[in-house]
């Protein structure tokens, strides 16, 4: 019995020290990690709206969230992009449900309501099937689309074979993003 207590206390001490050192490392690296993630996100945004060269040129429209997050449940973030003080377009980031999990998707839209491109920021779709939403051959189909296009899988968008659900989720999100920008522009 005495032995068990002694062993328990040793283990507890080890875990205590381990947890302490991990907490210290975490608090030291926390900000850098968040910064890295932000930077990566903005890098993707910059590719969607050509001409923008700095994260500062994006203004987040937080004022829109109370109204539009009710209407579009999967809406994540909305940014306006500026080049030399002039608004050149929007980034609508949505998190629609894919086949396996949420797909974090950024849609770039120009001021005249055309999709300038899409970027998949995060997803957990099946490798080899749904994961192909990351590929340029799928993504480039959305370039130049506007609300006057049908934006339906099987009509003007080719689905990834074997991954209709993922393809539909992305297509639908792009369509909704265009609708949203039509309302705020």
């Amino acid at each position, binding site marked *: 019995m005495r032995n068990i207590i*002694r*062993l328990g206390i*040793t*283990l507890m001490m*080890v*875990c205590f020290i*381990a947890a302490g*050192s*991990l907490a210290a*490392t*975490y608090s030291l*690296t926390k900000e*850098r*990690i968040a910064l*890295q993630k932000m930077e*990566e996100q903005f890098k993707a945004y910059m590719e969607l709206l050509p001409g923008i060269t700095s994260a500062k040129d994006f203004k987040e429209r937080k004022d829109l969230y109370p109204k539009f997050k009710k209407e579009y449940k999967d809406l994540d973030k909305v940014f306006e992009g500026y080049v030399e003080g002039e608004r050149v377009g929007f980034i609508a980031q949505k998190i629609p449900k894919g086949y396996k999990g949420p797909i974090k998707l950024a849609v770039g839209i120009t001021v005249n309501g055309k999709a300038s491109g899409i970027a998949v920021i995060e997803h957990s779709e099946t490798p080899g099937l749904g994961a192909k939403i990351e590929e340029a051959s799928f993504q480039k189909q959305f370039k130049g689309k506007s609300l006057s296009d049908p934006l339906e899988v099987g009509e003007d968008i080719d689905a990834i074979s074997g991954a209709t659900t993922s393809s539909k989720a992305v297509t639908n999100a792009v369509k909704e993003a265009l609708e949203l920008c039509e309302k705020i522009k």
Partner: protein
Amino acid sequence: MNQVWHDFKSGIIAENPLLRLMIGLCSALAVSTRVEYGIFMGIAASFVLFSSNIIISAIRRWTADQIRIPIFITVIASFVTIVDLVMRAYFYPVYKVLGVWIPLIVVNCIILGRAEAFAYKHSIMRSAADGLGMGAGYTLVLLVMGFIRELSGTGKIILFGQTLVSLGAGFEPPSIMILFPGAFLTFGFLMALLNIVQSRGRS
């Protein structure tokens, strides 16, 4: 001092963790597609090996036999998490490629193996030397495999954005070398080569 040097040296050739002891192969085969990944994976694993060896050796007097494995794992997992966080903060692009293999260092046989077989029974100095030697041996094999696979599979070696070696446009790189079969082929040939060299040395 001689003993410490011997402990360090044996990890590189005589007891090389990959080619001789044949442990921790899984991650080595997976990340050896490029020299650059080998460098980062090697440094990460070596740091964990070195630090956990020192700590486990330092607390071995208080570590009762019955609870040594949970203690080893706690120590190792802590260092792996530290590496994971630091790499995510400062080497994000590489971290994204190495991805799951960094947290998986926890279950790398080399580290738990050296804790159990060496650090638990030897002094701090000798355990540190063993950790460094094993880490160097692991990194060395990763670099050699990465060099062979990257050069033959992509036709050139790119290190930190700089093209070091290029085989030229006339060379059609067989992509099998970058894929999994290439890892097994390269590893098999390296092991055969080491066996030949060693048996020559003996006779």
